[in-house]
């Protein structure tokens, strides 16, 4: 439990969680505030890369210390998130590109 850990470790782990959460929050604000689709797709990536990564790192450190053995299945979460994000992103982006091309918006064409 957290009271069994030395103070500096508790502070380090809390700092990682809070920093990760703040980065994810910044990404969510970006999703609300940016003006077009192609800009907005960049913002949530902060949550799936560094934001999520820091929270998972904190989780791995905390549970490894309290259970006194290495806990690394957070690595699997990080790997699955990282591998699957581009799939969703490409689906959304290509759908959007297709619509913009049909409507004659200013996006690069395909195969000229």
């Amino acid at each position: 439990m957290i009271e069994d850990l030395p103070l500096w470790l508790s502070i380090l782990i809390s700092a990682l969680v809070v920093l990760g959460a703040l980065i994810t929050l910044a990404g969510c604000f970006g999703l609300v505030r940016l003006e077009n689709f192609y800009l907005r797709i960049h913002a949530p990536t902060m949550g799936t890369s560094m934001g999520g990564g820091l929270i998972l790192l904190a989780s791995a450190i905390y549970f490894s210390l309290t259970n006194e053995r290495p806990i690394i299945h957070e690595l699997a979460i990080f790997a699955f998130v990282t591998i699957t994000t581009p799939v969703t992103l490409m689906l959304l982006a290509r759908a959007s590109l297709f619509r913009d091309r049909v409507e004659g918006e200013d996006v690069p064409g395909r195969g000229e």
Partner: protein
Amino acid sequence: MIRRILPHPVLAVVLLLFWLVLQQSAGLGHILLGSALAIGVSHLAARFSTDDVKIRNPHKIIQLFFVAGLDVIRSNLAIMAVLFNPRPSPAGAFIEMKLNLTNPTGLAILAIIITATPGSAWLEYDKERSTVLIHVFDLLDEEEWIETIRNRYETLLLEIFQ
């Protein structure tokens, strides 16, 4: 011969490692069950993917991991700086670049790296012309971007997969 028993050796090893990490144990039972699962799934995968994944220069994978990891941290901070502006006005733009990399696994990994880095997103790959359409969040210099992707990632991936 080995290909008949194990059509995708790399995939099977990765699956076994994932299984052990998820079970949080390297006991004999977990290794046996995980191996059976890994071999079964790699046979299924062989039905829809005939690409042979060969890894040359395995040590370059570690180098690629650190290069990409560092860039992810750096671009997170860069995007955060833009978003904390009271009125964020990034210069978003499309880049179309030609790739020398044609290996499907290499391309998939390049797509993951570019997408996982906030500030750039892999949108569309054109197989016939082997070009890729990338959207950049805050484009300052198009040439510099293309050079960065080429020198930092594509060269390494070419050495690993092609």
